[in-house]
């Protein structure tokens, strides 16, 4: 299992990235940490003509805290974000989900934006981005644009990023006063792909629930603000509406059951954390 042949460039500025993408378009691929792309190359699922290594661009390796969001550049690894002081105070959902991404040995090189670009249906960061209403900053020679998470993910491993664009950063809203956040995931081993992962965001009236690992993209549901049997019914309705399928890892029925069980636990924890 070895990658196919490709040219390699190591731009030192964002403008250089734009130039390569403008020239080679869909035959160029960005490589950051490579934790998803290198296996795809080795399995020959991706055959780019040129790889663009963006990890030598200092401007992309920054985390910036704004008033109401955290801006995470394309060169920031998952480990670097986990180690960022104040992450759990600024956005507890992100802090709760990050340790579930792969293993310590892959988070050390895997980037936050790379996970968004890959758009695996069971990945944690796309789920968090959707739960919090984050945005993706795309840039190209044509200019920059901000795309809301709900418009960015359009299918399994398929996004709104055009051939000449790349993800320069993602912006994740910080925790809002009076809101509680919780994350739950189940896999066979810690670090395996999630069979089901979910996040709950509880406000004083609104209750947002997002489920990953079941459908092609994480499903965003705004639930009625109920509890007890009514909450069970609402979670059951979500589980039944999802297009759960049988596969090697779990049956559709098992996945629906996980949605109900993990969903209830996440909603209850999010409500306890409201403060």
């Amino acid at each position, binding site marked *: 299992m070895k990658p196919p042949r490709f040219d390699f460039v190591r731009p030192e500025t964002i403008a250089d990235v734009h130039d390569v993408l403008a020239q080679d378009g869909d035959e160029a691929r960005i490589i950051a940490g490579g934790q998803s792309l290198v*296996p795809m190359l080795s399995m020959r699922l991706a055959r780019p003509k040129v790889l663009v290594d963006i990890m030598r661009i200092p401007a992309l390796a920054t985390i910036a805290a704004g008033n109401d969001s955290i801006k995470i550049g394309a060169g920031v690894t998952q480990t670097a974000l986990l180690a960022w002081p104040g992450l759990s105070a600024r956005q507890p959902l992100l802090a709760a989900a990050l340790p579930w991404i*792969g293993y310590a040995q892959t988070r050390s090189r895997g980037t936050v934006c790379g996970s968004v670009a890959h758009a695996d249906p069971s990945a944690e960061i796309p789920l968090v981005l959707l739960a919090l209403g984050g945005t993706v900053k795309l840039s190209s020679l044509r200019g920059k644009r901000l795309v809301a998470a709900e418009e960015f993910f359009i299918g399994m491993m398929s996004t709104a990023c055009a051939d000449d664009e790349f993800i320069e950063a993602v912006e994740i809203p910080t925790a809002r006063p009076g809101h509680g956040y919780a994350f739950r995931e189940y896999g066979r081993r*810690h670090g395996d792909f999630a069979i089901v992962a979910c996040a709950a965001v509880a406000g004083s009236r609104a209750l947002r629930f997002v489920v990953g690992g079941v459908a092609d993209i994480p499903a965003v549901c705004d639930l009625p603000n109920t509890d007890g049997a009514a909450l069970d019914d609402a979670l059951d309705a979500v589980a039944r509406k999802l297009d759960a399928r049988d596969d090697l890892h779990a049956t559709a029925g098992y996945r629906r059951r996980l949605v109900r069980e993990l969903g209830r636990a996440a909603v209850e924890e999010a409500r306890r954390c409201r403060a």
Partner: protein
Amino acid sequence: MPRMSADIRHRLRFRLNGRAVEGEAEPRMLLTDFLRHALGMTGTHVGCEHGVCGACTIQIDGVPARACLALALQVDGADLRTVEGLAPQSGRLSELQQAFRRHHALQCGFCTAGILMSLDWYLRDHPDPSEAELREFLGGHLCRCTGYTPILAAALDAAKRMREAPPDA
């Protein structure tokens, strides 16, 4: 910005176990293959080649990483450590390696180099880990011989001994 052609090999330099090394690699060459085939450093093993089994784990710039998920050209200029760099001197094993021997924490040894490189980093960062923390951390490695129990025992024992007598003291 120079474009490195797929058709030829390109020079790269990095530090490996404290020594400067250099060689040439095509863009498509994985770091695992560069270490083993270009440099002859066969202590780093190749298992699944997609990041799951952990056999190829080394330390890149001080943190554990999968060598099979890095292209050789990506580590140009980096500081690497492999299992060959663990023993403090010829004929003397590190505290962690000694604990693996005492506890029979390996049988075939295929996974061992990767686990040692992970634990070497982890125990420096977490000198007093719980068994549960170690179990979660070792989730990033597959061992098909031991059932993991002797590996956990070796890691806990090595941690205890290093707390009592830090290796740098």
